């Protein structure tokens, strides 16, 4: 009898829980569905009342037009070059800085670390003018390097994330490596990097998403059409007083594909990293 009651209450609990989760999932996925639906509509059909989720006339014209309106493939290529280079630069530089902060004893390391952390509170808009002046002095304005170089000089968030992870790696491993004759760089590579694959993948995903979606920096630093990124191309579809939502949705959907692919492939690392960082200490 008790077992039966327990079963029923478990079913009810599960039913309520899953219903709640399904509702949440629908809320989360609705904008995405709406984006795809709008991208498949004719221009005039966007504002029809009542709104149609499945368009009565499905059209791929917007996808065709987006390629005619902006050099979509060139923009995608530029985005890929910038995003991959900047993400690699970010992971390499942050991991080196994090290793130094986590394991190397030097005077003022704590102060330096806190100064670095405090830069997380400064919005990028504040530093954009000095960065622009520096890039201009270096002759890098209107080159992809203006976007990649700052990423290769470390970042507060990435350094913080990796430093926390590196701090949790047992000191004994490092000592054993030292006894075996390893220098700092070898320890960094063979002990710390190898042990930190999930968190490195996480940082790479974060960096990838940030640089892929970044609009402000490409708008400020780039001027030539042939160097523009996908986000700038999509934003430029927005006219001064004329927005082609259908076209923007088609472009947005296409631009999301690389992020989706990356997430699907790196999901394993991503979850593992969250789990392991949650368990540590």
């Amino acid at each position: 009898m008790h077992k039966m009651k327990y079963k029923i209450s478990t079913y009810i609990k599960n039913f309520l829980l899953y219903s709640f989760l399904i509702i949440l999932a629908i809320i989360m996925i609705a904008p995405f569905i709406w984006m795809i639906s709008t991208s498949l509509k004719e221009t005039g059909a966007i504002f029809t009342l009542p709104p149609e989720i499945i368009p009565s006339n499905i059209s791929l014209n917007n996808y065709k037009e987006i390629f005619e309106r902006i050099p979509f493939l060139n923009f995608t290529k530029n985005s890929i070059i910038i995003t991959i280079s900047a993400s690699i630069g970010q992971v390499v530089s942050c991991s080196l800085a994090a290793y130094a902060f986590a394991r190397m004893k030097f005077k003022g390391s704590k102060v330096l670390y806190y100064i670095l952390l405090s830069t997380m509170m400064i919005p990028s808009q504040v530093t954009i003018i000095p960065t622009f002046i520096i890039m201009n002095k270096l002759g890098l304005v209107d080159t992809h390097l203006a976007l990649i170089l700052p990423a290769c000089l470390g970042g507060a968030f990435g350094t913080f994330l990796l430093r926390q992870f590196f701090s949790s790696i047992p000191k004994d491993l490092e000592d054993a490596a030292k006894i075996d004759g390893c220098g700092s760089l070898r320890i960094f590579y063979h002990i710390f990097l190898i042990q930190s694959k999930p968190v490195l993948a996480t940082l790479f995903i974060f960096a990838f998403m940030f640089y892929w979606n970044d609009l402000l920096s490409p708008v400020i630093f780039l001027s030539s059409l042939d160097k523009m990124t996908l986000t700038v191309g999509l934003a430029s579809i927005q006219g001064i007083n004329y927005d082609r939502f259908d076209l923007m949705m088609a472009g947005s959907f296409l631009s999301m594909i690389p992020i989706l692919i990356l997430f699907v492939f790196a999901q394993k690392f991503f979850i593992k990293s969250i789990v392991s960082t949650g368990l540590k200490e």
Partner: protein
Amino acid sequence: MKLKVKIFFVLFLLLTFLLSCNKSTDYKKDGKIKIKLTTWFIYNMKEWEGAIKEFERTHPQIEVEIENVVYSMHVQKLLTSSAAKVPIADLIILEDWFATEMLERDYFIDLKDKIYNDLDTSLIFLKPIEDYKNSKGEIIAFPNFLISSVLFYNKDIFDNAKLSYPDSTWTYDDFLQAAKKLTRDKEGDGIIDEWGVQLNYSPFLDVLLYAFGGGVLSQDRKRPMIDKPESIEAIKFFVDLYKVHKVAPVPNPAAMSNTVAFLSGKFAMAIISNYVTKFKSVNFRWDYTYPPKGKAGRVSIRNSIGFGIPKTSKNKEAAWIFLKWLIESLPPQYSTMAEGIMPNNKKLATSKYFLEGEPICNRKILPDLQENYSINYTRTSFAELKDYGFQSAIERAISGKYTIEEAAKRGNKNIEEVLKRSGE
């Protein structure tokens, strides 16, 4: 050691790859002077390219490169490049409301002599040029395209209600009476299906303030006018359309959404800017006419889109040659190249191509509106002055948190603060 070599090799490869990215554009090519022009009219790109081709045919020594900029982020880019004194183009597109932020920055060349000595001034509307004048009397840009606020109306809704369309004789009383008749709950379910008016803070509220004899700023744009009795009367008229007469839904604070709202076909009338590209594919009949007359007469808020030449440009003369050509010699078939707003050239503004351009509408009123009824009050910190300054106060009057008088007083105080902060 091996690892160090590996890391060095990887870094070297990475740097080589990075350095292989292209450097900035060469401004001179094949002995020609190459100038760069920025616009944001992506949906008129064919017209712009056609016009440039025509220019290059008649000026073979100059090559024009066009760059489409992101409208919403252009101000930030401009402010950054002006702070760094870096040219982003030889001809930079500006709109009056943010050009005011550039007035005192010493970034653009003074076009005053060129405009008054080099152009045929009988051809152009001179009033908007004043909107680009700084405290030294320099003119930092030429307003090439002029925007007017007009009264849009939905012909289908008027026809269904058997009312005659608005015209130049209308006053705001006529406007209110029509709005009452046009607001309808067609299905009798207590939900309004068609509204008489689409309320908006910009430009409708501005139009009302000045048409009723009040205003946002004094004529010298240095003192707030929101708490003057005439302004209070205008604000009351605006708020009452929503609260008392119930001929309009609550206004959307975002100015960009005004046209979108009217495009839904649920509004009989709206006083908005005369961009018409969006109207090409609507499924109702529409047109626009003069805004109604208030106690102080008829008012249309004037805005403009212009071009400035940065001091850091290497090709200032070539840029001026192109700008002059754009003002005086643009072939009429390209006169609708700015989303249907009027070119600042009286010949083009009255040309068959402009008046009969798609979508067909009452464009013939535009020169008269610019010449005789247009008002502009843009100035430094305009966006802050508008949004924080008084719109936020009027929003509270709409929501019932303030009385009209309190809103006007608060608006005035906010504007004073903004004026003080901007140091003028």
